[in-house]
């Protein structure tokens, strides 16, 4: 019996490419294609695939939400996240939501096929670059390496960063956190120093990557 796979990605061309690749893969079979999270859930109920390969960022119900619901409703089914981003925030959220694999779109197809085999064997699969991110993070937490991560910031600094990335001025932040403007500015300088960043633009991008602020208006 081939492994039955459901693919969920909002880009038709990506789905077609994946289908073409899986057709050549012995022992694996695509049973359905979903274009968003809601369709993935509907089709998973109906088709009972062994594995769902989910794009993390889809419009409407995104991959994280869909994973949470799928793993609750169909706990036997394995979920593999397929994403453009290997940022810690995304990986952690997907794994917490119940995914057992995480593969980057920048990786080779062989990694995705390997992920299917691995999760079917009941193990967790992380592609090499994602595993590296998590290991770096771990090393980072233990304080023996430098690198940009919120783990290096104090709780207060994270609060300041979040508000800065939401467009608040030093004065507004000061009154929200009930501290002085000088303390906010000093905090900001410390954050930049710790993260080795030179501009507010860099801080905003970092906050987006870390999931501290949303990119929407």
């Amino acid at each position, binding site marked *: 019996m081939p492994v039955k796979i459901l693919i969920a990605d909002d880009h038709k*061309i990506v789905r077609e490419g*994946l289908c073409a690749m899986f057709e050549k893969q012995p022992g694996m079979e695509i049973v359905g294609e979903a274009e968003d999270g809601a369709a993935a859930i509907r089709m998973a109920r109906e088709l009972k695939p062994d594995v769902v390969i989910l794009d993390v960022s889809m419009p409407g119900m995104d991959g994280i939400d869909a994973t949470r619901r799928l793993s609750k409703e169909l706990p036997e089914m394995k979920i593999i996240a397929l994403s453009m981003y290997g940022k810690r925030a995304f990986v952690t959220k997907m794994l917490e939501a119940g995914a057992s694999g995480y593969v980057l779109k*920048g990786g080779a197809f062989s990694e995705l096929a390997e992920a299917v085999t691995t999760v079917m064997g009941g193990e967790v699969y992380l592609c090499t670059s994602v595993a590296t991110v998590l290991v770096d993070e771990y090393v980072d937490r233990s304080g023996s390496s430098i690198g940009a991560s919120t783990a290096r910031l104090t709780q207060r600094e994270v609060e300041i960063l979040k508000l800065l990335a939401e467009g608040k001025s030093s004065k507004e932040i000061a009154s929200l956190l009930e501290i002085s403007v000088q303390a906010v500015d000093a905090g900001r300088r410390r954050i930049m120093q710790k993260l080795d960043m030179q501009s507010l633009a860099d801080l905003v991008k970092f906050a987006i990557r870390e999931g501290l602020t949303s990119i929407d208006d």
Partner: protein
Amino acid sequence: MIFRLKMHNMNITEKISILLVDDHRVMSQGLRLLFRREPCIEVVNGECHGTDAAQLVREHEPNVAIIDVNRPDTDNIELSRELLSEKPDIKIVLLPTQLHAHVLEQAIRYGVMGFILKECNFAELLNAVKSVHRGNIYMCSKIKDILANGYLDRAQAASMGNSSALTEREYEIIRYMSLGRSSKEIAGKLNISSKTVDACRRKIMTKLEIDSVAELVKYAIRSGITSI
């Protein structure tokens, strides 16, 4: 003589050679496989993430280049320009997930001929390749909407006498700001005074109805002017 003529005729039905510039390996492997099924198409290159694209154009002289690199659209348009200066008759097809009207217009000006959103199917990409190869512009229907809406927005703003559309220079300033450049640095780059840069910044904020640099950076990311 007759032989040569025959050769010439054969050239007309020759395969369309494609350079595939794509840094999503899963995606590029899939596309390659789909193109391989098409008898009229030949993908000339192995993996290409962008940096070596010009070199590959020199080497293989492909008819068409498909560009799908995960970075700001403006960078991909720069790459298109580079490829076009390398081989002026190369036809470029962009394959973005989304495209901002301003960036689209810029791409058209620079000579990009094909625009297909990733939500389209492979058959449409194939159509686009054949179409640009014949010398026609090809846009999927959503891209046409983006173009039309961009145009209408500007026409409307102009007729109201109070343009809220951003100018080319303002877009440039947004790009530098979202890269973290100071007013002074931007002034140096654009050969204008810091005062002018600051005035432009205020104007941009008014036009976009935002009041912080943080929001401006987010706007730039959403519009494909800068990347996360």
